[in-house]
């Protein structure tokens, strides 16, 4: 622990002197007839994030505003929102980077709304749990992979922070809730790639389905929205490749692996 007596200049300030921004925030309380947008004005500094702004709105302007947040570094996945019509983690989205004087903030789409910016994650996990996956490995890789060049190899599914941004961005999930969706299919591919106690064949068969891997229409919006480099669309395509291979193998009389 480093003691620094003087707290100094706050790089995440939401007070003057900063640049003024208008925040159009989605508001809804249970029992309301319809949601509406409410506008708040705040000054922001260079590093002020959308999450800083929203918590400042709650602390100073309207204590009834509810939103989800926890870790503040895009590791927990709770503060996923739609910011200016795109999925974003509020905690790592700097306001000035949005290059717009008006910041529209909405909850993620295609999920049940709880209130204001809060959505219910039950639907997300109902899909996710269909695959069944531990979220942390005992050790995330061999130490020698920890070199700067090896850092890329850590792009593994356990990077998934379960934020639901992929479900919000997916055009198919937008129109049909039966589709298993990107996060769970990416989890399925991780389990096939590295089973660690799960049965890869069962998962291949489960997701080889009209509502599984074959439902994806390659819009890649999930991979664009993903804040954790999971690349769900890429995972779905690799899952399909394996499923085609398995089907060919069984058709040609070979046994499934």
């Amino acid at each position, binding site marked *: 622990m480093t003691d620094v007596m003087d707290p100094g200049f706050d790089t995440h300030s939401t007070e003057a002197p900063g640049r003024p921004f208008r925040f159009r925030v989605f508001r*809804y309380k*249970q*029992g309301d007839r319809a949601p509406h947008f409410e506008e708040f004005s705040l000054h922001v500094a260079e590093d002020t994030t959308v999450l800083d702004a929203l918590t400042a709105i709650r602390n100073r302007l309207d204590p009834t505003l509810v939103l989800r947040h926890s870790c503040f570094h895009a590791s927990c996945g709770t503060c996923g929102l*739609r910011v*200016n*019509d*795109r*999925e974003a983690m509020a905690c790592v989205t700097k306001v000035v980077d949005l290059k717009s004087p008006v910041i529209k903030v909405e*909850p993620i*789409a*295609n*999920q*049940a*709304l*709880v*209130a204001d910016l809060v*959505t*219910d994650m*039950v*639907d997300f996990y109902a899909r996710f749990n269909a695959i069944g996956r531990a979220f942390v490995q005992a050790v995330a890789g061999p130490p020698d992979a920890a070199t700067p060049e090896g850092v890329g190899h850590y792009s593994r599914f356990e990077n998934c922070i379960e934020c639901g941004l992929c479900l919000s961005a997916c*055009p198919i999930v*937008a*129109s049909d*809730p039966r589709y298993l969706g990107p996060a769970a299919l990416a989890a399925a591919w991780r389990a096939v790639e590295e089973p660690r106690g799960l049965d890869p064949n069962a998962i291949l068969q489960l997701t080889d389905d009209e509502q599984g891997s074959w439902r994806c*229409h*390659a*819009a*890649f*919006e999930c*991979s*664009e929205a993903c804040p954790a480099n999971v*690349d769900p*669309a*890429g995972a779905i*395509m*690799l*899952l*399909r*490749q*394996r499923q*085609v291979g398995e089907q060919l193998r069984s058709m040609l009389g070979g046994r499934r692996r």
Partner: protein
Amino acid sequence: MSERLVEQSPAGREGVDSAAVQRRTDGASPRRRGVASWGDPRGRRLGGWAFVLHRVTGLGILIYLFLHLAVLSLLARGPSAWDDFVSIALSPFFLFFDVVLIFGLLAHGLNGIRVTLVGFGLVVDRQKAMFVALMVLGAIILIVAALRIFEVG
């Protein structure tokens, strides 16, 4: 977790579900963006544009296929019916639609190559570059075809 770990579980699964429902809303919809969102250009990235382009051109070509087959029935009504149609079809107005058709075929067909490769897990990480390259190729072919059509017309 196996059930034996769950002691004093008041109502088994029902208990859990009702607890989950605690957080659910009184009747708020899931705010599903719906089919209409396919037509919403806001926030869309390249892959999303490719998805929409593929759907629109695919449906357009299918409608054209029905029209085309219907028109071909003129052949069954004998030489004069068909030859009258041919003279109309060679008007500049119809030729413009031929260019639109070729645009649709090129966009759908060339992007189809990308979708097929990607769908088999091939060159997935190059999908954007592939889309751009195929569309540039398509544009070139379209220009050549358009010049040829109007030159003939």
